[in-house]
């Protein structure tokens, strides 16, 4: 196993959101990237794109995803989470 292999496929959000993003996968090199395992061979390009952005850029991109959320009839209620301390109070 090469370093960082476990990081593959660790996307947290549904791929549909990625398809609606404007950014491509033109990953810029981080100065630290040369010496770490965090590059496109070990981490999804979309994740590296996200890491590469500034905080304001991430916020702006996230706001664009609301169009998809609304289009898909997204629900504002949190997903049922039996591990939440508030779970029984939210049902």
């Amino acid at each position, binding site marked *: 196993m090469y370093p*960082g292999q476990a990081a593959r496929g660790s996307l*947290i959000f549904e791929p549909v*959101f990625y398809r609606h993003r404007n950014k491509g996968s033109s990953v810029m090199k981080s*100065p630290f*990237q040369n010496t*770490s*395992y965090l590059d496109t061979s070990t981490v999804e390009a979309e994740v590296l794109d996200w890491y590469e952005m500034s905080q304001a850029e991430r*916020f702006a991109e996230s*706001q664009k995803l609301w169009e998809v959320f609304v289009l898909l009839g997204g629900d504002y209620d949190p997903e049922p989470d039996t591990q939440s301390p508030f779970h029984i*109070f939210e049902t």
Partner: protein
Amino acid sequence: MTLSPIPKVLSTFLKHKVKALLIGGQACILYGAAEFSRDIDLAIMVSPENLEELRKTLEELDAERVFYPVLSEEVLLRGHACHFRCHRKDVKGLRIDVIGVMRGVDSFHELWKRRQEIELPGIGKVRVIGLADLVKTKKTQRDKDWPMIRRLIEADIYKAPDDPPEDKIYFWLVECRTPELLVFLAAKYPKIASRISTNRPLLYSAIQGNLEEVRTLLRDEEEREREADRHYWKPLRKELEKWRSRRDP
């Protein structure tokens, strides 16, 4: 024009000068660990004046309480969260959760000192919990919080300069949850890793390059934190049940 209600709500909080820090999913977006969150979580300073401003803000957003408890200084200081849903047309449905005290992190006063202020176009200077404190708040009993911690640290490392300051290296070695990255960091900074290993024994294994042992010990660390979180919430859940059954406070 964005369909997102988030900027409108954040602007309203800024307008009323509520002393609050963005935490949870929205903070994770800013720090690179998440791409989307459907609600807003805030840590707030618990004081009569600040709660008054908070109430005015919630009123302007036409936000009503959902679930228990009722917003008060007392319940916030006991560690409870208060939950609201907005009804104003342009933010309709959005959930806002506020909390005053959190397990495993310093007081709001200390968090405020370490806050990050992020200028967001069209909104203003948003106050966000510091990264190291955000990581601590994510050590919960919930599965979904642990991959967030992993990504928070990865994103921080990815953006780091070639020659990161020692306090950054220390932070990564203390909080990193990616086994391969821990082994990499321990090899690159063996002296610092060795110093910290007394408090984080899995760094011994990372220094030795024992990836499997690091994985096992990371799982053990996680389970201990999950158990501590369950233990923390046990009496609070009892209080919530009591209030819900009595319909108070």
